[in-house]
């Protein structure tokens, strides 16, 4: 297994590499190129990188104008500002006209760490998911993140991608091929299905191992695409295991847990629990420590799995 790598690093490296292949690819940032890693693209393709300064709302509009002129713009900032501050620009200038703009948001969730609550966006999946026609993706590792960038380029329409600050291990199987709207069953299981994305996928795999030691056979699904949700896979896992746990570094309201709950309530009601940030703001601290504090770690996922299995 390769060393741990943050998906924001994968994002920047993929952009720089894909810039050679796709001439219409342009990248915008809002004074965070060093942090979002679009600086790697800037170095490789300085003529196609445009810093918009600390003015995210204008950046989204500029991206819209570029898309309307045949470019494939990636607009980057922290999730808090891309999805939060610029929500209405994304909604009205990108989502409503369904423009070919790609939003590369880094620093999603509480693993932003020491910067604390103002920068820990745990609402972006919810905000972006509710925009009609918006695709929302949160890759789990380096392998997947790189493929997500190219998949977004080849898809025509708006895409919101969340990349993380914290280094994560590779979880993708050998020869993995990411496809928008398709989840990936990483480990099959009979007793409970853990549906996770982003940094929570590796935590879910660890939880599954811990559960196995206690005699619970937990499946793990990497559900990188939150919208459109792979409902077929969600329902299949619910039918197969009879119990579902979602895990995401996002509020339990409106994100992956919300999407899966909506799907199951309508198509296949089974006992379900959500692991996520519990309707609260984040706080400063080392990322790994925060995962424990906010009950987003493998231990917390395993606890929820045991609870939900009892409800069957």
């Amino acid at each position: 297994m390769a060393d741990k790598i943050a998906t924001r690093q994968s994002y920047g490296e993929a952009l720089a590499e894909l810039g050679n292949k796709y001439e219409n690819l342009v990248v915008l940032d809002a004074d965070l190129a060093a942090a979002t890693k679009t600086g790697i693209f800037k170095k490789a393709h300085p003529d196609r990188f445009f810093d918009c300064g600390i003015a995210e709302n204008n950046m989204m509009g500029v991206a819209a104008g570029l898309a309307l002129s045949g470019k494939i713009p990636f607009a980057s900032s922290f999730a808090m500002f891309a999805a939060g501050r610029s929500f209405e620009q994304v909604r009205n200038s990108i989502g409503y006209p369904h423009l070919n703009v790609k939003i590369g948001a880094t620093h999603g969730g509480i693993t932003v760490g020491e910067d604390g609550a103002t920068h820990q966006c745990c609402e972006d999946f919810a905000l972006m998911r509710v925009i009609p026609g918006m695709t929302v993706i949160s890759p789990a590792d380096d392998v997947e993140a790189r493929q997500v960038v190219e998949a977004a380029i080849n898809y025509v329409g708006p895409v919101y991608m969340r990349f993380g600050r914290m280094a994560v291990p590779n979880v993708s199987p050998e020869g993995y091929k990411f496809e928008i709207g398709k989840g990936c069953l990483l480990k099959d299981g009979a007793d409970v299905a853990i549906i996770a994305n982003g940094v929570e996928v590796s935590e879910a795999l660890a939880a599954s191992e811990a559960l196995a030691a206690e005699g619970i056979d937990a499946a793990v699904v990497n559900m990188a695409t939150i919208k459109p949700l792979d409902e077929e896979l969600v329902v299949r896992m619910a039918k197969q295991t009879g119990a579902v746990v979602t895990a995401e570094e996002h509020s339990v309201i409106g994100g992956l847990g919300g999407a899966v709950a909506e799907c199951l309530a309508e198509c296949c009601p089974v006992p379900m629990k959500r692991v996520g940030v519990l309707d609260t703001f984040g706080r400063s601290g080392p990322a790994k420590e925060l995962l424990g504090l906010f009950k987003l770690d493998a231990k917390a996922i395993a606890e929820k799995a045991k609870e939900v299995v009892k409800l069957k």
Partner: protein
Amino acid sequence: MDEIRKSELKEIARNVRIGIIDAVYSASSGHPGGSLSAADILTYLYFEEMNIDPANPDAPDRDRFVCSKGHISPGLYSVLAHRGYFPVEDLKTFRKSDSYLQGHPDLKKTPGVDMTTGSLGQGVSAACGMALAAKLDGSSRRVWALMGDGESEEGEVWESAMFAAHYKLDNLCYVLDWNGLQIDGPIAEVMNPTPYREKFEAFGWNVIDADAHDFDSIDSAVKAAKACKGRPSIIVAKSTKGKGVSFMENNVSWHGAAPNEEQYNAAIAELKA
């Protein structure tokens, strides 16, 4: 400007204004005041200036027009219809549930609409992106963005102003329809955004004053904007809200209200006189 051409443009602008009143009356809603104040500017740009082809509204190298003050959709639709993008008769479907003429401009539904607008401050940013793309393409196409004076209270307008100057977008020109009124009253009383010249100059723009109802003035302003190299231009066009319909002129209550039958007949009679 050539006197014959000028009188032709005046005639077109008169018909554009009639179309505005027709649309708003048919819809029983909409924004006549700012549509009428911008009618001459719209007429000049669409009939005299822009390199466009109504038969090929998506031509890649056409000039672009962004109606950043999207609520004046009656003005935009009327000029587009008269320019040949769709039948003038269809203006009467404005705001109806089966119409392609939405309350605010929708590029997916209406031929000739270059950007979906309505949320103030956003159109100008898209115009910046279009101008940047033209530079990247090495194209000589130009981008025009019409904005409102009240709209300039939006912070995003000034973000865009920084951006356009920073990237030396001299193929971009904003036209500021300075009619002096916004929904809650005179702009000077609601939230005074002036002085425009000093502010835009401080942001690095070429600022050109114009009379929004004088084709000679608009003509020389547009030529001055196109002649300016190395920085974006803004035409600060002093206008009269409701221009052309005397009872609507300088009356803020006509910002977003439709005439009743009697008022409609009076407005049309005055415009046709």
